[in-house]
């Protein structure tokens, strides 16, 4: 069973990779059937992922049913081969001294593993991975099928499918890797695939520019992940998630391995821990388009719509969520970092929602909506509770469904309208393309949080966890407290009570270590200093109201888009030509599948509590610090009513403004005045970045180019001129007169002989 599961796990990334290679090799020859290798690979991988999901669920389901006790972690590690090993990478100098304040010795109770740096190619299967693999391959398959129709007459048809398959491979490996360095590698790989797909129509300058922008902004985040990886290695001595059993019987504790997770004091807090978490937050912001690194996602709409649906809605942008969820034990040890996560998420959600309300390009609306929903997920993650993490993943799953549905629907509209996507130029399309309209409406309801669609339940859970953190006493049990309660951030001494100050530790660390003592203390009554001070109930209250407002705005702009596009008098732009009809089956069948999922998945998953209990068995979430915060699974009526009310207000306002009207009629944002301009200009983020970053770099580039052209090239050219000059001087000797040649020879010989004679004189 174990080995067959291991084989199946390897197949999930392997099959799309083979599909990609097959497309590359055979694409041209297959012509209009070039999608076959890629679709076959992704489809097979989807089947295998589903099998793995069912298998893992069966394993989890065998555990106890008590949600309040920490679940038994379920994981399976399979190591393919050893990629790199450096024997004694960690010399004695790096080991911890009393005052260094840096990373701890490897783990309590285990021997130092000789300081070797080793990176195995190891994959792990646990509930989180299984969930995400299913989403990735499933949505990937649907998008691939959709692309058969959408990209039908594009000259780069094989290249698209190769890239999609490559992306599915990279993303699968990212969520299945069991080593931080491998995660980094595939983090970059999905970035590269995203670049290639955004710039798919590379002859279009805007597309090339958008691809470049996406890659460069992602790079900033990748830098954060790199530094975080370095710090992780220095702190924990290994980069593996899992525990490695060495030949001599010692165990190298993985960062997220069973041993360390079970240890109450297994994770480092304080400055180093916060630094690691904040750097990972930076990486997640880059990949998941949170502020201030969100500027690339709207521009990424230059790519083909199926690519946008797959990458920028459902999968790649969720890599940040995955990373934080996976590193939950690390984050939970630094409440300040968690609070930052939520603040970043909520701010982004609100700002993006505001910008989306005035966008006229349907895909841009959806792009900002994605940013906003990702912000929601970050908010949930930042609460640091079991409910928060599972809510975030729940929302990730439902968001994948309905956002992909919306994007594919937008693609269908774009395809029918001959490439026009400005909502002011078409309208009343429910008569022209009924299936698209119906599925789009389902997706919009899910996005807006209309019960009983999928988005309602996930959004409800997010709001619930926020509320719990904002009102810790209202929710009674001490399990629902702010995550700063239970865990003991472990300082570098490994001892209790010693508070010798060191240059590396902030004052907050000192006071906390002085307070070390009984676990289970109520953390909400203790003072926090520094970044941790953000973790205060008033902060959470503010975030709760921001999220509620964002929910209302979400409903507004979503239904504004729906009404402008599908209601009102039928208007078709002239570019549509004869395309203005419903899309072919290849495009509408994924829409239907996703519509069903958007409609019912939320309800099913919530009622059965399948996802939460399934995810609770993820090793990262079985850490006592996280598991302690588990709450009974209840439906929070008060939160639900608040959320639904916000959605209803939003839909109503949208209906007032746009239902039944011509889509190019004067819009509501004219009432916003200067605020409307601010929103429309995306809060001037692009302009600020251009002034602060782009222009100085361009100036530097010009200086360097000048240096290269003039000085470097000039030097080389000058050196090249030297033989030419010599040549033209020597050339004059060749006069054609033989006697002069002979004379030259004689003179030369004489010179040599004279020199010799001089040397040999007695």
């Amino acid at each position, binding site marked *: 069973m174990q080995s067959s599961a291991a084989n199946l796990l390897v197949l999930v990334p392997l099959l799309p990779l083979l599909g990609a290679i097959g497309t590359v090799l055979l694409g041209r020859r297959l012509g209009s059937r070039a999608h076959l290798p890629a679709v076959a690979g992704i489809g097979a991988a989807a089947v295998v992922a589903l099998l793995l999901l069912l298998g893992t669920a069966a394993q989890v389901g065998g555990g106890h049913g008590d949600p309040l006790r920490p679940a038994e972690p379920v994981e399976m590690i399979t190591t393919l081969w050893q990629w790199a090993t450096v024997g004694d990478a960690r010399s004695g100098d790096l080991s911890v001294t009393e005052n260094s304040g840096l990373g701890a010795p490897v783990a309590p109770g285990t021997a130092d593993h000789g300081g070797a740096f080793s990176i195995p190619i190891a994959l792990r299967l646990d509930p989180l991975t299984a969930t995400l693999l299913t989403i990735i391959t499933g949505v990937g398959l649907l998008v691939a099928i959709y692309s058969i129709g959408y990209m039908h007459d594009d000259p780069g048809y094989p290249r698209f499918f190769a890239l999609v398959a490559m992306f599915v491979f990279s993303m699968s490996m990212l969520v299945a890797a069991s080593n931080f360095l491998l995660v980094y590698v595939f983090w970059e790989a999905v970035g590269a695939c995203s670049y290639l797909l955004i710039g798919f129509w590379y002859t279009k300058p805007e597309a090339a520019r958008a691809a470049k922008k996406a890659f460069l902004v992602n790079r900033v985040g990748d830098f954060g992940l790199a530094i975080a990886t370095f710090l992780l290695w220095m702190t924990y001595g290994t980069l593996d998630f899992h525990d490695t059993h060495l030949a001599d019987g010692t165990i190298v504790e993985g960062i997220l391995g069973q041993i360390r997770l079970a240890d109450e004091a297994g994770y480092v807090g304080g400055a180093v821990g916060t630094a690691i978490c904040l750097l990972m937050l930076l990486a997640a912001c880059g990949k998941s388009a949170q502020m201030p690194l969100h500027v690339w996602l709207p521009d990424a709409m230059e790519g083909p719509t199926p690519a946008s649906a797959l990458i920028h809605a459902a999968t790649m942008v969720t890599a940040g969520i995955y990373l934080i969820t996976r590193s939950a034990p690390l984050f939970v040890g630094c409440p300040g970092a968690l609070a930052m996560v939520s603040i970043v998420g909520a701010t982004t959600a609100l700002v993006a929602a505001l910008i989306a309300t005035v966008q006229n390009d349907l895909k841009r609306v959806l792009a900002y909506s994605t940013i906003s929903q990702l912000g929601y997920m970050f908010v949930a993650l930042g609460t640091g509770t079991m409910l928060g993490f599972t809510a975030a993943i729940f929302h990730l799953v439902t968001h994948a469904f309905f956002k992909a549905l919306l994007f594919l629907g937008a693609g269908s509209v774009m395809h029918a309208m001959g490439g026009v996507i400005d909502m002011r130029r078409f309208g009343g399309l429910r008569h022209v393309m009924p299936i698209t309209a119906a599925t789009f409406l389902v997706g919009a309801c899910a996005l807006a949080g209309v019960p009983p669609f999928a988005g309602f339940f996930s959004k409800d859970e997010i709001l619930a966890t926020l509320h719990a953190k904002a009102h810790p006493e209202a929710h009674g049990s001490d399990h629902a407290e702010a995550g700063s309660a239970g865990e003991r951030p472990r300082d570098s001494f490994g001892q209790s009570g010693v508070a010798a100050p060191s240059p590396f530790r902030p004052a907050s660390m000192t006071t906390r270590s002085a307070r070390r003592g009984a676990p289970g203390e109520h953390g909400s009554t203790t003072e926090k200093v520094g970044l941790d001070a953000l973790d205060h109930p008033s902060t959470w209250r503010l975030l709760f109201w921001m999220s509620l407002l964002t929910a209302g705005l979400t409903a507004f702009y979503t239904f504004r888009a729906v009404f402008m596009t599908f209601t009102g008098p039928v208007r078709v732009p002239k570019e549509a030509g004869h395309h203005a009809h419903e899309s072919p089956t290849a495009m509408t069948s994924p829409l239907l599948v996703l519509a069903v999922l958007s409609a019912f998945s939320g309800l099913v998953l919530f009622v059965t509590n399948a996802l939460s209990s399934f995810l609770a068995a993820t090793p990262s979430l079985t850490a006592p610090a996280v598991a302690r915060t588990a709450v009974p699974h209840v439906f929070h009526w008060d939160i639900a009513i608040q959320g639904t009310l916000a959605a209803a207000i939003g839909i109503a306002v949208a209906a007032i403004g746009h239902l039944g009207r011509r889509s190019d009629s004067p819009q509501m944002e004219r009432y916003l005045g200067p605020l409307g301009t601010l929103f429309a200009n995306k809060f001037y983020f692009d302009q600020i970045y251009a002034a602060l970053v782009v222009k100085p770099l361009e100036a530097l580039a010009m200086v360097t180019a000048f240096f290269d052209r003039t000085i470097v090239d000039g030097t080389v050219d000058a050196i090249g001129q030297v033989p030419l000059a010599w040549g033209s001087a020597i*050339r004059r000797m*060749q*006069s*054609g*007169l*033989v*006697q002069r040649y*002979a004379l030259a020879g004689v003179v030369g010989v004489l010179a040599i002989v004279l020199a010799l004679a001089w040397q040999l004189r007695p």
Partner: protein
Amino acid sequence: MIPATMLTNALLVGAVLFCLGLVGILTRRNLIVMFLSAELMLQGVSVTLVAWSRYHGDWGGQVLVVFVLTVAACEAAVALVFVLQAFARTGRLDASAWQALREENLPRVIDHELPADDRVVPTWPHLSPAGVLPEGDDSRSLERDHV
């Protein structure tokens, strides 16, 4: 066997002939004179070889000179044939007439000033055809009444 003094004398003679021949072949423009200078060099070498051969009592030197003589004869024959070919193509025996192998952008070397032919054209006595009494020239005859 010759004494060492005569050896050095002979070697000196050979060296002088060799160097004079070298100067001649480098300088003179007439193909024939060039060739004569080359033969002069060969003479110098022959003298040297014979001197060493006689000094050491080794016949090798003289044998080599025999061969040098032979080869010089062949060389003269063939070279003169080519000289005649060269003359046929250019109409002159000038070594400087052949400059076609110079570099492309170099100008042809031409003589700018040639010294005038300052030979005195000798006036040979004019012999009248046989059987005809030459005209007497009283101004030039000496005073003789009989021959």
